[in-house]
């Protein structure tokens, strides 16, 4: 690998090291914030509106996707004034169906691509995968990076791949999944974030949800710092999507605290922040019903789609 000036290698040489102890201290501190009353209500509304309602299974069927799409804009009709989720996230084969189901709503359709979740496929397949999803109407593409190449130090390969997928996306927004559970250190998370941002990511995303650990606060915080540094250097805003692992409203609110205090309030909307989750929505709804009625309802009062 030869080093060229202004190559991705120069960019990554500028990535600061990350101290895990310090990161954990800070993320623990976010969780001491007290979010109450109207701040909690507003926060829960934001969380709902930032969710990418997701189904990514081999056994996904049109029926399943159709039901989930209905839920996306009918979260809990007995509670008035609720927002819809931000998007549904499906495999490319389901994009067209989801798009039809969501016609007339402002719910976006996101599609995973690039041989999700492993990414172990030839480049041409990944391009075709992406184009198919875009042609089927996907508003957003969630790609995976080649973690093997990244860990082998072939950053140029990873950079070029992201850049070419970005091109294949056309108008669709690109979320780049780092699969942080496979990157092992926060130093790597930071490097991969800088790499993805420089290659043209509109969003960086923690995980596929298929590998444990998925999103954690330290990992998300490290990625938010990469976004903040890019913003300070260029004025450009990149979005963030933690996926998998954020399954209750309390934790989701702490994520919003983290976003607010690391990036600022400009990021507190679904253009720049998403939760990739399937079970989070119902927990948020449960809290909202509690806030309105003063008592908790059992899980059976909230639809599972």
């Amino acid at each position, binding site marked *: 690998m030869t080093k060229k000036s202004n190559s991705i290698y120069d960019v990554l040489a500028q990535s*600061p*090291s*990350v*101290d895990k*102890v*310090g*990161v954990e*201290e*800070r993320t623990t501190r976010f969780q*001491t*914030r*007290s*979010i*109450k*009353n*109207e*701040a*909690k209500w*507003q*926060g829960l509304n*934001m969380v709902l509106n930032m969710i990418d309602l997701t189904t990514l299974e081999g056994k996904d069927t049109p029926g399943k996707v159709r039901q989930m799409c209905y839920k996306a804009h009918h979260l809990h009709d007995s509670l008035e004034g609720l927002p819809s989720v931000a998007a549904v996230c499906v495999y490319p084969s389901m994009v067209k169906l989801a798009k039809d189901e969501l016609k007339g709503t402002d719910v976006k359709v996101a599609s995973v691509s690039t041989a999700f979740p492993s990414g172990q496929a030839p480049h041409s397949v990944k391009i075709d995968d992406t184009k198919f999803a875009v042609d089927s109407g996907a508003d957003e593409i969630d790609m995976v990076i080649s973690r093997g190449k990244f860990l082998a130090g072939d950053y140029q390969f990873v950079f070029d791949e992201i850049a070419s997928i970005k091109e294949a996306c056309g108008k669709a*927004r690109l979320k780049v999944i780092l699969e942080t559970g496979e990157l092992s250190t926060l130093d790597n998370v930071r490097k991969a974030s800088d790499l993805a941002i420089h290659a043209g990511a*509109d969003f960086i995303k923690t995980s596929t949800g298929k590998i444990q650990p998925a999103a954690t606060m330290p990992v998300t915080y490290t990625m938010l*710092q990469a976004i*903040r*540094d890019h913003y*300070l250097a260029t004025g450009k*805003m990149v979005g963030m999507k933690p996926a998998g692992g954020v399954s209750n409203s309390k934790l989701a609110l702490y994520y*919003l605290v983290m976003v*607010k*205090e*690391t990036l*600022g*309030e*400009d990021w*507190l*909307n679904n*253009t720049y922040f998403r939760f990739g989750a399937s079970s989070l929505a119902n927990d948020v709804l449960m809290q909202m019903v509690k806030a309105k009625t003063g008592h908790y309802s059992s899980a059976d009062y909230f639809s599972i789609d």
Partner: protein
Amino acid sequence: MSKKETTTWDYAPAPESTKIVQLKEKYDLYINGKFVKPSSGKYFKTINPANEKVLASIAQANEKDVDIAVKAAHKAYTSVWSKMTGAERGKYIFRIARMMQERSRELAVAESLDSGKTIREARDIDIPLACNHFFYYAGWADKLDEAFPGRKPKSLGVAGQIIPWNFPMLMAAWKIAPALATGNTVVIKPAETTSLTMMILAEIIHESGLPAGVVNIVAGYGDTGAAIVNHPDVNKIAFTGSTGVGKLIQKSLAGTEKKLTLELGGKSANIIFDDAPLDQAVEGIVNGIFFNQGHVCCAGSRLFVQESVADKVIDKLKFRMESLIVGDPIDKNTDIGAINSKEQYDTIQKYLKIGKDEGCDIYQSPCKLPKNGYFMPPTLFTDVAQSNRIVQEEIFGPVLTIQTFRTIDEVIQKANNSPYGLAAGVWTDKGSRIFNLTTQLRAGIVWANTYNKFDPASPFGGYKESGFGREGGMHGLEGYLKFDK
């Protein structure tokens, strides 16, 4: 892509309930196991610096009260405390620790109300650490021979202790716990602006059944402190406070047999190298200088950043400062509380003016401040040099000076180029560099990739005008012991 829409999301007020603290109108002196009125009949008011309201009146001890207290301490020393086994002493200290823990919420709220520090810090740092100091030293009470093998440690007698207003309860623990563990009795004076938690501690000590006269509490101003320092029956003075007063104390003790430890001011260097984990270093800067409104003797008030990363670090720091919440100390979400007193507020303002007059660039984060009380935004000075007064003198507030450096030798020289030598912080990814600096920085405490971390097992104290003697850890026992030759 949808257009940018900015939401404001403010945390709703989340005040900690103050109902747990049942304040009395008046607090008396605690001498010889009894709550007694001051002989002068005088009481002074203690106020809440966050709203300038009076919290309570505190008995003011004069020379006569101090004399009674020292005599009681002396009697308790000779008749009870020095004869008791270490194991028995330890039980009392453990009991005080447990009782403090049981009342920790109350102590935290009272501390926040009286000192202006945030409830978060009082609850998560001051009070737990204070309890831990008692627990820690309770454990040493019966192991003094093991701590100093072959040196036959002996207690001194009466320890006169004077503590500052920045960490009232914690400093009380730093002083009282080792003194009791080593078999000494105590006459202690809290600072006049922050006596309240000491009054609650008096109740705890009283309920613990500690023998009368072992701990005596006399509140008051400087003259009360002077009476303690100058009393002939006091065998040891432990003082934490300003360097000016420390010098006066040392002068008055010259030629006496009294043992002395001083923990004084500081102007500590926080050093960021270009290979440091920069984002965590920024947190360390914030924690180093804005913790407790900067009222910290070991505050990292002189920041040194390697020139190659200086702009980046300063940008990140300013960005981070925007998210700091300055306001009501009793709100659980407040990051920076009230300046402790009008006097200290004026001192800090004086330094801000000096800095501006010296031509330094000032930056203050754009935060909302409450209308009443003594509040100020976190403040940076850039474009400063060693020759600036704001770099040389201790400000004791949320004010940071930022200098850049080129080489390691330069930063060591500049960090040491101060009359103080309390603490330092070093931020680098390189282990060898950390060890190199810990040997070369003339500071009592050097933190690596962190700042303002305290533990009862770790000794704390200064070089040069930051004082002498160590508090905390096994080293902390030594200041309260004498040894057979």
